[in-house]
């Protein structure tokens, strides 16, 4: 999974370097200036490799879910055996939980931008807990469906439901793992308003997972 | 070294002209109404041959002509926009032109309905044989269901024994008989995996996909026995999945139908 990209992010800025490549970026010369006097300042600071990497990862994740979505639409359009499931109430609850978690993440980042360390850590922890609650909620949804006798192979809609929710859960678990690393760094006091690229990148991923879930929820239950 | 490369490329061009014009292995004779195929193939072959030979010979010539001779000097040329535009537009016109012309035969097969009087044959592929079915005198195919498949009773396609429309259906295995000059509509099915119905003499090929019904049509123009290889990997017996297409005179066809009907 592209989520494995996350532990790569430098959670704790070392004393002498920003990426373990000591000094290499510190001369301030690297980047897009042309070296012949015609260039301007560099467009992308080096620390933002995490941002580029994250957007690449999101691009790959988008393609993965685009592929599943087109398979979904194609399969639904072709078959006579499509038996749509109803959205379980617990899924609405999970959706709310995940939405709130994005909000708490933003509250956490706002605190960090103002260097309010305690609320930063607190909201970050709340976010991680809400993420876990979401995963547990998804598991409950699976158990409820199984209790109704609806399994992976029961009908195409249930197949897609299990596959899409499982893949989303795997990706979200990656996000929680990343949050764990960020929290560890936060507890050790390694983030400040000036040094927060790991927090920002994780937030991008987190909000993306939130949006992805909304998309999947709509695709699975609100369309067709 | 440059000369050697040039000579090998020249040899390649000569050998390919020799191979492609000598017909040491070529299409089987065309015996259907899809005559556009061979015309389009020849046209494409001529265009491609010119492009191929020019490119290979230019490569050989440049490599030989501009070799390092010790005292010569490479010329610092970064490019030429006029050239770029010329060859871009030229190749675009040639390639797309051929592509558009190449749709004629496709349209004949896929965008033209078979005539209303076309004879209908149902083809059901399975590992590793071709099953053919004719509707018989009533002009209707009997209902089929996978649950009736019983190979020991030679009911390969699962014909419903209770459906009266199926009583007179004629079924054959690996042998398809059609009258000459008669448009034939083929309804393709597959029982298990994907197969491909290929009649080289007719220049047609169509996958038989399980779960799908695909129709194609053709008109044979010459009597004779033709082979139907399977052209999509279908398992270990793929290479021996062979059907025979027997193109006969209308009279012979009527006789054959009668014989099949009484044989049932």
């Amino acid at each position, binding site marked *: 999974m*592209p989520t494995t990209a996350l*532990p*790569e992010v430098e*959670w704790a800025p070392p004393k002498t370097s920003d990426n*373990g490549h000591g000094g290499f970026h510190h001369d301030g010369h690297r980047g897009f200036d042309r*070296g012949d006097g015609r*260039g301007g300042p560099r467009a*992308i600071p080096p620390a933002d*490799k995490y941002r*580029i*990497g994250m957007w*690449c990862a999101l691009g*790959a994740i988008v*393609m993965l879910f685009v592929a599943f979505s087109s*398979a979904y639409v*194609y*399969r639904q359009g072709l078959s006579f*055996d499509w038996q749509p499931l109803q959205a379980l109430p617990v899924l609405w609850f999970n959706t709310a939980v995940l939405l709130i978690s994005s909000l708490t993440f933003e509250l956490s980042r706002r605190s960090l931008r103002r260097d309010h360390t305690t609320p930063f850590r607190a909201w970050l922890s709340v976010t991680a807990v809400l993420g876990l609650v979401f995963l547990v909620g998804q598991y409950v949804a699976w158990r409820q469906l199984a209790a109704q006798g609806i399994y*992976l192979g029961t009908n195409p809609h249930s*197949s897609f439901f299990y596959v899409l929710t499982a893949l989303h859960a795997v990706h979200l678990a990656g996000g929680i793992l990343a949050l764990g690393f960020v929290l560890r760094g936060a507890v050790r006091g390694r983030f400040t308003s000036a040094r927060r690229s790991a927090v920002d990148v994780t937030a991008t991923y987190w909000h993306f997972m939130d949006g992805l879930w909304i998309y999947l929820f709509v695709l699975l239950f609100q369309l067709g | 070294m440059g000369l050697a490369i040039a000579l090998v*490329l020249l040899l*390649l061009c000569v050998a*390919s002209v020799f191979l492609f014009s000598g017909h040491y292995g070529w*299409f089987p004779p065309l015996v259907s109404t899809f005559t556009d*195929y061979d015309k*389009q*193939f020849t046209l494409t072959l001529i265009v491609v041959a010119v492009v*191929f030979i020019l490119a*290979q010979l230019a*490569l050989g010539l440049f490599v030989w002509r501009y070799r390092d001779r010790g005292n010569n000097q*490479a010329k*610092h*040329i*970064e*490019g030429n926009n006029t*050239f*770029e535009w010329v060859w871009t537009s030229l*190749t675009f016109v040639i*390639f*797309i032109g051929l592509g558009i012309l*190449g749709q004629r035969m*496709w349209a004949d*097969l896929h*965008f033209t309905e078979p005539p209303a009087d076309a004879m209908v044959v149902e083809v059901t592929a399975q590992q590793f044989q071709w099953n053919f079915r004719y509707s018989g005198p009533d002009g209707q195919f009997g209902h089929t269901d*996978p649950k009736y498949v019983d190979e020991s009773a030679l009911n390969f396609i699962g014909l419903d024994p209770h459906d009266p429309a199926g009583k007179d259906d004629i079924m054959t295995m690996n042998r398809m008989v059609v009258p000459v000059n008669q448009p034939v509509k083929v309804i393709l099915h597959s*029982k*298990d995996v*994907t197969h*491909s119905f290929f009649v080289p003499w007719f220049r047609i*090929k169509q*996958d038989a*996909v399980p779960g*799908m019904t695909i129709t194609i049509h053709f008109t044979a123009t010459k009597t004779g026995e033709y082979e139907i*290889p399977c*052209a999509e*990997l279908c398992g*270990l017996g*793929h*290479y021996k999945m*062979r059907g025979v297409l027997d193109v006969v005179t209308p009279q012979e066809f009527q006789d054959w139908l009668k014989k099949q009907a009484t044989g049932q």
Partner: protein
Amino acid sequence: MSEAIHEAHVHHPPKGFIRKYIFSLDHKVIGIQYYFLALFSVLVGITLSLLFRMHLAWPNASWDFMGKLFPTGMPGGLMTPEFYLSMVTMHGTLMVFFVLTTAPQGGFGNYILPIQIGAEDMAFPVLNMLSFWVTFVALVVMMMSLFAVGGAPLSGWTAYPPLSALGSISGPGEGLGQTLWVISLAIFCVGSMLGALNFITTTLNLRAKGMTLMRMPLTVWAWFTTSILGLLAFPVLLAGGILLLLDRVGGTSFFIPAGLVVNEQLVHHNGGSPLLWQHLFWFFGHPEVYIAILPGMGVTSQLLATFARKPVFGYKAMVSAILGIGFLGFFVWGHHMFVSGMSPFSAVAFSLLTLSIGVPSAIKTFNWLGTLWKGKIQFKTPMLFAIGFVSLFVTGGVSGIFLGQTGLDLYLHDTYFVLAHFHLIMGVAAIFGIFGATYYWFPKMFGRMMSETWGKVHFWLTFVGVYCIFFPMHIMGIAGHPRRYSDPSNFKYLAGMSTYHQFITIATFITAAAQFIFLINLFWSLWKGKKAEDNPWHATTLEWTIPSPPPHDNFGGKVPVVYRGAYEYSVPGAKQDFIMQNSPEEV
């Protein structure tokens, strides 16, 4: 996370053997690891092709000694059809994924790209290591499938369901072997995506001062574009692989239609669609063709310029062509499916898009010829392979003009004509790119020169050999010989094909034997080759500004500054016939 030992400016490699050579974070070591992974796979792939070529030439001959080696696959020395198909399937899978995808990109891209843009390493070294080891695990699983109980997979490298989805019921090789095959590919997808992400970030973010986009060597452009293709195409194969795996083991029906009767058994599935797999597979599969060939195109441009002592003709046009091919490559997948039962209307659109992708390919060919024009060509071994690449690219490319036309594809689809086409263009041409790159960068990577004499012998045998193998296949396809037939003799109209098969098999054995010359040259030169200078080819790009082999941190802690484009050869008024990218020389 990164625990690489670092001091200010100069970095020393890790001390322990394992950290230095096995779980290394150094892009150079990882590049070499990828290269040897591909070398292993290509040896297995070639061996398999020798086995099935033997059978095709003499289908009824009995090879006693082979019977002892493969008691189940060749009982009594006679090859079974399922063994034949397994060989074909594994040959295709290993070559496409573990050779053509790994060596040009994971191997040379990893080693050379960071140096060519003036970086110390990839953007994410740990991720880079992870990409390699994930790919390695995929290879291990793939090799396990070769020896799986119930036979190696035999659904072809395209693994069309339902054949590949039904399990053992549809024949030998469809049990555990096919399951492992799917799992291996899914793992491979993950490794490739991680690699692609790393390449893109590295190219965008770690370029040295002055290394503007339009000063990047065309190799970098090719690796960069290839990474974008990989990043966007592999997830789609991953999705398809997950669905196929679930159809096999999870009781789902994504690709398996209802009411199948396989071997007289009714299969209980809902109404899935076999075509859905084909769409997912080829949406990945067509960009994959360019993933294999684009790096070879970049290498060819680099080599032609270096050894013709001329700038690449039309650098900007070349960059546009690479990007154009990459972009169009996502919209032509349907040309693999003209006879699949797909809508005939979309087939027309796919056909015209396919023919238009020939335009950037032609632009590349013209510009390569333009690069040679009025040059001063030095026939070093890498150059020979680059020239061979151009010839093979033309030959393999023009047959695409037949196959891209819906009408003509009706006959040629799935015949030997297709085999000729894709082997020449994405198989052999890409391999020539790898050979050219090997001979060219070997001195940089290992600090020693490979033997020129044996390199030339290797080139001539291989160049003539591959034409002898693949050119006659056009004719066999025109004669209507379908692919993946273990023995055409059941068909009367194919009676004339055995001469071709025998000729091709003999050519295959000679060409394969010629590869031993390469292998011996490679390993002999590793230890005994002549010491290489820093810049033995008098080339201009940044990798030639540093020692051979490069130090652990590439530039010894000094940051290179780039003053000019990548191909300044034979500039009038310059001191030498080349000016390196980091040279501030005013002309």
